[in-house]
């Protein structure tokens, strides 16, 4: 039992154990993490994500938390936990009164998180989303040096969630505040985190930079496969409601997003293959690639691994198509697809 840390200029490591009532290890987790940015913590329900955050926050008395570089770990819980006997402003003032230094003006922060109109209100009667925004502000104004977010935006609708996540990214940078964010939504984590920990049965089974982890996690997914193309935002075609990205020097179009994407997720089942350059069509995304591998999916389906520069694109095709096209390793191919939900894992 215990938590030991090793610290370098750019990273810190933790090792923690927490026994359950039978003395078995409920949490036996260790990882080396960057000291800045947003770290995602991903895992199935019951993997121990919340418990790990509670250990880091010093809330699990059976786990010894010693000598971490973060002396003040703030936490935003799944339930906002606003103190109902205090107004919104008083909740924030109470948190600020325990802060070692002033982080930000309450008015400015409430403006940023979009609840300035609620500041004089009682906490009773606020919606779940409003409460969660205030809870995030309360944790930030308390001047933590590490912020732990336990499904903190899950109560918000999609638009609010994206807005708040963008604000969190901005605050993490401007306040130099590292954050650990728990979420079930790998797509969301892939957009907002710099680093990812994957937790299973109380253990960190993998951790690494987000691009590497997203690729790795996809392999273990039992449902449909996805490719995760790293991309650079080029321009917005606002008159068409479309965004244009660059992937390995080739153009890729998506429906306009709320924020520029770093990774575009492409369902393998949505990719169509041609052995010659397709004539002009309505499907705008057409990437040139080289066939680097053919994998078995099942009796009637094959998965093509297409090399596009340094990246890989997966395409699921039938055995019948494979035979008709007479595909061979090393062949140049054209891959076409439409992008409905480029930031989501929705087939």
């Amino acid at each position, binding site marked *: 039992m215990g938590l030991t840390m090793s610290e370098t200029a750019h990273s810190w490591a933790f090792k923690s154990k927490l026994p359950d009532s039978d003395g078995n290890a409920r949490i036996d987790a260790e990882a080396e993490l960057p000291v800045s940015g947003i770290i995602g913590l991903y895992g199935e329900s019951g993997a121990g994500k919340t418990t790990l955050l*509670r250990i880091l*926050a*010093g*809330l699990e008395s059976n786990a010894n938390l010693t000598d971490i570089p973060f002396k*003040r*770990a*703030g*936490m935003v*819980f799944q*339930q906002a*936990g606003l*103190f*109902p*006997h205090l107004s919104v402003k008083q909740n924030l003032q*109470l*948190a600020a009164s*325990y*802060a070692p230094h002033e982080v930000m003006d309450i008015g400015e922060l409430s403006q940023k998180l979009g609840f300035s109109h609620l500041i004089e209100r009682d906490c009773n009667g606020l919606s779940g989303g409003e409460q969660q925004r205030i*809870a995030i502000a*309360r*944790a930030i104004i*308390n001047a*933590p040096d590490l912020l732990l977010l336990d499904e903190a935006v899950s109560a918000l609708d999609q638009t609010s969630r994206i807005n708040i996540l963008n604000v969190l990214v901005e605050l993490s940078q401007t306040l130099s505040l590292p954050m650990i964010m728990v979420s079930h939504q790998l797509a969301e984590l892939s957009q907002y985190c710099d680093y990812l920990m994957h937790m299973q049965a109380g253990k960190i089974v993998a951790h690494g930079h987000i691009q590497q982890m997203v690729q790795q996690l996809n392999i273990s997914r039992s449902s449909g496969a996805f490719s995760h193309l790293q991309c650079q935002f080029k321009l917005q075609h606002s008159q068409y409601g479309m965004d244009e990205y660059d992937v390995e020097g080739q153009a890729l179009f998506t429906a306009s997003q709320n924020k520029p994407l770093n990774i575009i997720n492409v369902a393998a089942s949505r990719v169509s293959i041609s052995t010659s350059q397709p004539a002009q069509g309505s499907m705008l995304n057409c990437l040139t690639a080289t066939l680097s591998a053919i994998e078995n999916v099942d009796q009637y389906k094959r998965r093509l691994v297409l090399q596009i520069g340094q990246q890989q694109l997966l395409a699921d095709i039938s055995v019948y198509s494979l035979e008709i096209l007479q595909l061979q390793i090393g062949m140049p191919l054209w891959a076409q697809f439409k992008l409905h939900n480029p930031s989501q894992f929705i087939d």
Partner: protein
Amino acid sequence: MAATDITALWLTLKLAFITSCILLVIGTPLAWWLSGWQSRFKPLVLAIVALPLVLPPTVLGFYLLIAFSPQSEFGALWQNITGKQLAFSFYGILLGSILYSLPFMLQPLYAAFSQLPKTYLDVAHTLGMGKVARFCKIVVPLTKASFISAFGLCFAHTLGEFGVVLMIGGNIPGETQVLSIALFDHVESMQYQQAHVLAAGLLVLSFVLLVVLYRQHGKKAQLWG
């Protein structure tokens, strides 16, 4: 109202008030500790402190009378220190009332502390609030209604106390004769007019107290319901 009845009324109010105050001081930390205590012995402790709820007052009074008598170690110690015997004194009935009314303070507070969402305390902890600050700034304001209920229940229960007081205090005017015993005395002496005054007075007082308590209960439900 006879002078002895006024004395009995004053003594009753004094006993109820002091009992409730002392129980507030003792019961609060005890209820807080019990609400967070995880042990297989917890039901045993809860049963012990709840015993006065189900025990006939005469049973408790009988054992306390033995404990308070100068023949017992405790009674003898008291007499050595104060020079007066504990049985048949105001302090005797005060101690008896404290033990007898303990569950009425403990139960509402224990229930309120146990039902308080743990998230509030976790949040307060992560904000850097210490144990005392968490209790004073978060727990007490959130359970204020239960404190009022507990105090009111103790007060009301002590007002109506009869068996325990009679057993350990007897019927000494100005010392141990509380309203319920004065009423019993009037009935025994067939002074029904005086008995009516005391009985009606106790009835109205108890009723008003309970109305106030139930109003507070409603407010508590609104706080985090």
